[in-house]
């Protein structure tokens, strides 16, 4: 579990989309092996926060360091950093023209220059691990949403990343498929992967997270262990949010 040594550090991060202040002086430290779940109402900046960590969104001011290094600007160094940070998207974003196995092996072969046979072997093992080894030669469009998202997780894991970012990984799924994706994420968390998870799945936050971050209006409002956060939220904003989602 968490060793306390910080892997991802955000310090005084601000981000403006034109006149919109989407990240307002956000500071956050994620330790190695820690699982941090980010929750909050839509438009609170939680997805943007997640996307700044591998610089899919550049920030306006502040600093972000990953594994001791400040995020590099566009170029080879940034590509290398991104290869060490896995990312899973709400809309899966599997490469539509490639088979599931090709999706999983593209990064290792082209970015890491691994031998095709090595990448293939590990790719198949990862697909087996997420329970879709029998889908390896199909195209993304032939799979269910849950299967596609599990393939996307396998694709990110194939790079053997130091951390994984999940940007609302279950929000585009039919309800009966949410569980299969959360199962994979829970087992990953149990193995000590450093994870930042933006989600609305409160069950996952309760049982898999080390910390829950609550965001509202671009600000980081609360940062607490899940038991404490759900039982006794300190801010009015968080109490209001929880009352809205937990009453149903």
């Amino acid at each position: 579990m968490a060793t306390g040594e910080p892997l991802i550090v955000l310090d005084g991060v601000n981000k403006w989309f034109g006149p919109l202040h989407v990240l307002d002086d956000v500071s956050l430290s994620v330790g190695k092996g820690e699982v941090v779940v980010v929750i909050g109402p839509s438009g609170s900046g939680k997805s943007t926060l997640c996307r700044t960590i591998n610089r899919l969104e550049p920030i306006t001011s502040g600093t972000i360091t990953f594994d001791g290094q400040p995020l590099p600007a566009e170029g080879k160094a940034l590509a290398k950093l991104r290869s060490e940070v896995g990312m899973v998207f709400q809309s899966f974003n599997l490469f539509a023209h490639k088979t599931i196995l090709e999706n999983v092996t593209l990064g290792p072969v082209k970015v890491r220059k691994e031998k095709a046979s090595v990448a293939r072997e590990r790719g198949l093992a990862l697909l087996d691990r997420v329970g879709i080894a029998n889908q390896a030669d199909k195209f993304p469009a032939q799979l269910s949403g849950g299967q596609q998202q599990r393939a996307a997780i396998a694709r990110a894991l194939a790079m053997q990343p130091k951390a994984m970012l999940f940007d609302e990984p279950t929000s585009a799924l039919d309800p009966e498929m949410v569980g299969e994706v959360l199962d994979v994420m829970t087992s990953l968390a149990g193995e000590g992967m450093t994870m930042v998870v933006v989600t609305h799945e409160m069950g996952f936050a309760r049982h898999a997270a080390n910390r829950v971050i609550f965001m509202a209006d671009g600000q980081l409002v609360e940062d607490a262990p899940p038991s404490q956060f759900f039982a006794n939220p300190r801010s009015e904003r968080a109490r209001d949010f929880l009352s809205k989602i937990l009453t149903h």
Partner: protein
Amino acid sequence: MNVLIDKFDVFAGGFWLTLQICVLAAIGALILGAVVAVLRISPVPPLRAVGTGYVNVFRNMPLTVVMFFAAFGLPALGSNADFLRVPGLDAIFSRLGTDLPYFRFALIALVLYTAAFVCEALRSGVNAVPAGQAEAARSLGLTFGQNLRYVVLPQSWKASVVPLGSVIIAMIKNSALIGFFGVVGDLSQTADQLTSAEGYAFVPVAIGISIGYLIMTVPLGALLDRLEKRQAVAR
């Protein structure tokens, strides 16, 4: 209508010359257009500016004016476009190697002009690929070039084929202008030669050269339709 039979060799010669310049110009425009398209979508702002500037200049200028610049501007600069006298290539495309430079000038103008449209057809294909595809590729650590090569271009191709075909068909028809800029013996200039110099009636000659252009454009259009249908099935 006897002119079509009596002067068949003249029509055939015109057809052959027009086909030559169109094949060369299509290859040149596809290559240059692809380069400009890469500039226009590159993450480096100065390169993007160069690409955008190119498209703004050559897409918005009449082809006639581009031809004027090529046919009168290049000689004024002391160039005979001799770099196009490629050994080997001029064995098939004999006009590339002649001392009279007008075929080469016309070729340059056609390539410069058409490349702007090729660029935009390719770019519209790239824009048709969902942004998430390129984002996923970037998040895996693929560089800009790898992203284009392995993820974006293989998918954008489908959306580019049909507009690209229209651009090339338009280019074939645009090539009818070259006769006014010193190129002797292409399809259109053949018509001029037969009617004004040799006194043949205009309509039969016009029918003759129309057939010549249609032989080039109609099969190209049919090929595009087939490609489009095949994609519809694959999708």
